[in-house]
């Protein structure tokens, strides 16, 4: 029943062309070991769904610099000039999504909703190509769920079942992403025995996590 797996084996399961939900906010709470291993194994043509593309030398920003990314769905690319450059040259397709909408779309995917109605983006360029729904005279955008092949999650602590906790602002997108992927791979700063995380402290229940990166030889 152990979900422990080596970093190398975990990433080997990810094919080229896969879609990846990647936790973190400016790489804070981002799965940096998994990202580095993606680069080492030269996984390419990836679709990345993440809050932002970090900075060129940090976290998933490096995937962009290494030209491993074909498409990004994100709310912010302002601090990674490489993303902007590759977008303008046509090497990366970028879908910009308001941050709160991105969170709700990922959550929708994870909790089995067909979509949500949000007031955010009505009357702006974000509305283009989307259905609108009017309720009591107010207009909302119909925003559709996002799911991915894999979610790469960074936790503060994990138990051997895969229960996860996150610390402070490193939580961000990790818990909702852990619900929205076919396969969930988590890395954790600490791994503790089952029972060491109290039920009320668990932020991602173990049954959502498929693989937990071993901390051996770290």
């Amino acid at each position: 029943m152990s979900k422990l797996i080596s970093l190398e084996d975990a990433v080997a399961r990810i094919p080229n062309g896969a879609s990846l939900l990647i936790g973190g906010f400016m790489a804070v709470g981002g799965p940096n070991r998994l990202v580095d291993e993606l680069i080492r194994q030269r996984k390419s043509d990836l679709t990345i769904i993440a809050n932002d593309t970090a900075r060129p030398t940090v976290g998933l920003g490096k995937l962009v610099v290494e030209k491993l990314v074909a498409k990004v769905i994100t709310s912010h690319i302002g601090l990674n000039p490489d993303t902007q450059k590759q977008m303008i040259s046509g090497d990366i397709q970028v879908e910009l999504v308001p941050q709160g909408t991105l969170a709700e779309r990922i959550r929708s995917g994870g909790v089995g909703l067909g979509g949500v109605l949000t007031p955010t983006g009505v009357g702006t360029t974000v509305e283009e190509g989307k259905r609108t729904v009017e309720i009591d005279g107010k207009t909302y955008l119909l925003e559709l769920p996002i799911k991915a092949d894999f979610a790469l999650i960074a936790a503060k602590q994990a138990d051997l079942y895969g229960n996860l906790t996150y610390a402070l602002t490193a939580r961000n997108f990790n818990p909702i992403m852990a619900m929205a992927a076919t396969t969930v791979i988590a890395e954790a700063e600490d791994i503790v025995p089952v029972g060491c995380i109290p039920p009320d402290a668990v932020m991602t229940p173990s049954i959502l996590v498929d693989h937990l990166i071993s901390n051996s030889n770290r």
Partner: protein
Amino acid sequence: MDEKTLIAKRVALELKDGDLCNLGIGLPTLVARYVPAGRNVFFQSENGIVGMSGPVAGADNHDLTDAGGSPISALPGAASFDSALSFGLIRGGHLDVTVLGGLQVDQEGHLANWMVPGKMVPGMGGAMDLVTGARRVIVAMQHSAKGESKIVTRCTLPLTSVRRVDLVVTDLAVIVPTDAGLVLKETAPGVTVEQVLANTGCELILSPDLRPMPLEG
């Protein structure tokens, strides 16, 4: 006092005791320094915390940053949460005030602050949700950039939201968007009404109680 400090000080006077407030990156961040004494204001960072405070030297923590990834600290009574709840607070009307930078504000009170087509496409981040959901939206920006007024008849840049902002504070003036148009409420120290009008790209309505900008609460 430089222009940014002036703007930040004036905006800070708008914050009330117990308010939940979100400050955009850049100029708006400065506002936190000037909250009038005796007012307990809770600052949210949209990456997942209420109760943020400025960094403490020697206590940087890689799990605790602002939305730009820079170190912050937290006050007693702070609460952390995920991005869905963070934007639930914003979109759900629980955020009392947001202070954001601006590229343009127009006569209808519309804000454009997230892209310059073909030049700068950072993405909207949380700005669209903030302007749509906050109870009060304050724009804190320079009145002009590169010799051109940022206050215009109609935004030429893509809008952040069709929601009218509530207050615009610049280095020259305080302006309130209304049904009738933009109302000039205050002029900055040493700035005349004529100077404001000359530096504004659209008509301004002079408030009957037009006054000099206060800087202390």
